[in-house]
């Protein structure tokens, strides 16, 4: 049945990090303060109301949580300390599980044990594959004829690259299917009729927002945005190099420091390292609104990302210093952290926002275009009616 009030949803949402249900009495201060909310996309108050009432369908169709970048102004100004910012964050976690058709996301968000078990299973799988495919007992590989560490022969780069591609296809498939699911929930099920041409005309907004994080920049906390942008560019750079150009990026030959391979690598590493450290620091200090409340999945994400970066750095340091065995071990460890991190975070958990946020902006624009079209049609109909009466 549609729009049935469901008091049980509260218990479900609690697992996603909602602490205080009763705090909000709907004064609307949060919405009035929000730098991002606008006519037709009112948040956070409306979403909080839907959460309180357990309106599943309304929530599933709500794009607003993704349009919020958690500057925390709403929580700061809330006269009841109801924490609207964190409620929106919790709603994003919930929606991530709603879009995910496999149910894994819900499992991760609702059970710490499940999340850690998944991490260990994937890590173990990587370890087994590494043992099978790497050439670790072969002592001749310890030092290449050029004197460097033969990482690409120790664990043949074609295999890694192949694994890379498999993972990429898997991740893309899951993420895309979740986005399609999201599309159905926010556009189709809500009865929004989008004009065909608008799918193309509005597409630039998706690209532009993905690259620029433009919307995010409207939030008040500027340093946060810079750090985040640095992290995003670093991550994208590294992702492209690893997935598309691994054979170029991961060589046994050590180039001079100014070689683009190394420059890009350092840029990405610095971005990831500084970014993750910054976020770990903020979450531990708990002074900013957006870092005060951490769900365990937030910590898993940031710690895994940090460890991936750290192990990557160590691989590099050991390799250029010719420490073969250390390089090989740390390389396997690096893969064992990186793979579960990507497999869990990208399609099922926190990192999925990299896709949901820009797509939400895209869908919101489609919605607006559809509404405008409807308005025009209504006006035309009124005009025609008036004319026929005249």
């Amino acid at each position, binding site marked *: *049945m549609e*729009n*049935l*009030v469901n*008091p049980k949803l509260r218990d479900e949402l609690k697992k996603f990090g909602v602490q205080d249900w*009763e705090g909000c009495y*709907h004064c609307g201060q949060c919405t009035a303060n929000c730098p991002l909310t606008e006519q037709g996309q009112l948040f956070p108050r*409306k979403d909080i*109301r*839907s959460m*309180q*009432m*357990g*309106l599943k369908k*309304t929530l599933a169709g709500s794009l607003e949580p993704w349009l919020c970048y958690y500057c925390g102004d709403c929580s700061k100004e809330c006269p009841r300390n109801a924490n609207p910012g964190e409620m929106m964050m919790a709603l994003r976690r919930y929606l991530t599980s709603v879009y995910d058709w496999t149910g894994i996301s819900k499992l991760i968000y609702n059970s710490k044990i499940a999340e850690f078990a998944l991490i260990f299973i994937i890590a173990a799988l990587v370890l087994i594959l590494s043992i099978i495919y790497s050439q670790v007992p072969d002592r001749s590989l310890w030092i290449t004829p050029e004197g460097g560490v033969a990482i690409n022969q120790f664990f043949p780069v074609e295999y890694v690259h192949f694994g890379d591609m498999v993972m990429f296809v898997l991740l893309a498939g899951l993420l895309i299917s979740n986005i399609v699911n999201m599309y159905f929930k926010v556009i189709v099920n809500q009865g929004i009729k989008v004009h065909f041409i608008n799918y193309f005309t509005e597409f630039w907004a998706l690209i532009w927002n993905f690259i620029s994080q433009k919307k995010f920049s409207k939030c008040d906390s500027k340093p946060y945005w810079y750090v985040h942008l640095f992290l995003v560019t670093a991550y994208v750079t590294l992702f492209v190099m690893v997935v598309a150009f691994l054979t170029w990026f991961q060589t046994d030959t050590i180039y001079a420091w100014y070689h683009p391979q190394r420059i890009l690598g350092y840029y990405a590493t610095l971005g990831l390292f500084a970014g993750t450290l910054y976020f770990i620091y903020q979450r531990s200090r708990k002074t900013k609104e957006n870092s005060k409340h951490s769900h365990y999945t937030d910590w898993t994400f940031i710690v895994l990302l940090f460890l991936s970066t750290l192990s990557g750095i160590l691989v590099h340091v050991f390799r250029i210093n010719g420490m073969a065995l250390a390089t090989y071990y740390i390389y396997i460890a690096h893969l064992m952290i990186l793979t579960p991190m990507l497999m869990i975070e990208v399609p099922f958990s926190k990192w999925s926002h990299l896709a949901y946020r820009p797509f939400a902006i895209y869908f919101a624009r489609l919605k607006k275009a559809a509404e405008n079209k409807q308005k025009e049609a209504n006006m035309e109909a009124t005009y025609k009616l008036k004319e026929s009466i005249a």
Partner: protein
Amino acid sequence: MEEYRIGVYICWCGTNIAMMVDVEAVVEEIKKLPNVTIAKDYKYMCSDPGQDLIVKDIKEHHLNRIVVAACSPRMHEPTFRKALENAGLNPYFFEMANIREQVSWVHTDRIEATRKAKGLVAGAVKRVVHHKALNKRYVDIHPATLIIGAGVAGMSAALEIADSGQKVHLVEQCNQLGGMVRKVDLNYPYLNSSRQTISQLIKNTEEHPDIQIYTESKIDKISGYIGNFRALLSNHQEQRELEFGNILIATGLKSFDPSIIENYGYKRIPNVITSADFEKMLYSGLIHCENGKEPGNIAIIHCVGSRNENYHPYCSRTCCMTALKYINQISSAAPECNIYDIYADMRAIGKDCEELYASTSKKNVMFLMFDQQHDLPVIKQNGNGKTVSIEFTELLSGESIHIQANMVVLMTAVESQANNKEIAHLAGISTDKNGFFIEKHPKLDPVATTTEGVYIAGTCQSPKDIPDSIVQAKAAAARILATIAKGKVQVEVTTAQVNEDICCGCQCCASVCPYSAISYNEDKKVSEVNEILCKGCGTCASACPSGAIVSKHFTDNQILSQITGVLEMQIETA
């Protein structure tokens, strides 16, 4: 013939009058009038120096009539009358012209305003010579008190009065004391037992030697006036007469019947019950549906019959907090039960009530807001017969929603007792448009009525909770005890008077008198005015076809000469 020596004082009222009225020109014009001995203007006539000016002039110039042109007489007529008294003059040898509210505040043309002021003052001058000396009158107070209604208000007042050693007649129409509170299980905000609270009060009342209780009794007639009332009281066996000096009405109120609200289907749909029904259920200790099962989902709808022009426009005052009480009681009796509280505005007025709301919101309850004016929820019975669905637009989300519930509790409004009009007529007081008794002044005197010696307390005046009822009851008791302590009370002197030589006995006057102050003397065949009941409103004087009734201080002579004065001055200054 008496020589008239009139003193006229024109007030500036700071700039309030002086900015629009040429005060000095008025003085000059008035000086020319006959009988005016002196005319002066002054910044603030009501100030002490202003009043001293009058007193001094009366003594020096042997003035015997005073006119003050200033503000509305409502506030300062008593002030100036007092000044006349201080100078040894009868206070009724005084007339006030209102040149502030009726002139300076409402006009924009200074010349015309001045002209109007001159006219009003001239009218007052012309009138004041016809004023007669009137003297204060007092009546003795009978020390007993009649209290109608033995609810929490009636009993509290009775104990207060009786504890000071005065006799109380406590009349109750039911067979036991306690009123509405007796029907309530727990009371908010502390959720303690009403039964305990009320039983102590009942016990003290019943055992008090100075309180005479008459249960299952009704009052047939009240006659007399402040200090000297009589009432006829009857029960099924006998009729008796009581004598007392003051009356306290504390008749309480009753529940509204929601079956006229189509949307809610009360009495038509099973498991839709009123708060009174639910209270009984709580009292019995078992919350159950009609099939005997414990409900898993209970909806509570607020403002049923309240705050809606189609039913009652007022707020019933206690239902919001009672609903919160229910939520607490339901969640302790059935912790798994989902509660939907469908409210219009959560009115948590009163000590610790907001705190009750805050703690209740932590229970297993969902607060949903509806529009009590235009969009009442619709309750429909579901096919299974076990549940009902409630549909409405939730205001905070703007969504059209529906709820499945096993039981719906309607927080019904309270309304005035059906026989309030009758009681009002007996006691000579009035009811408002909702049937509640009208107090003398909504802010300054909320326990007295327009009839001297008749007081109101508790929910018969307006819906209120237990503490507020008791506060009002005890305030009324204090007022009554004050009159008893004084032993006598001053009464109105500007009353109506019948000229028995002219009166033809048609009794037109008696039929229009709003204070039941006129009675018919069968022996003399004329109407008689009870000067203690009379408020001097003048209705009878204008109704009398033969001009036999005169309103003291508002005689035809006085009014006509005032009009003449105004018109003459208007012609002169035209």
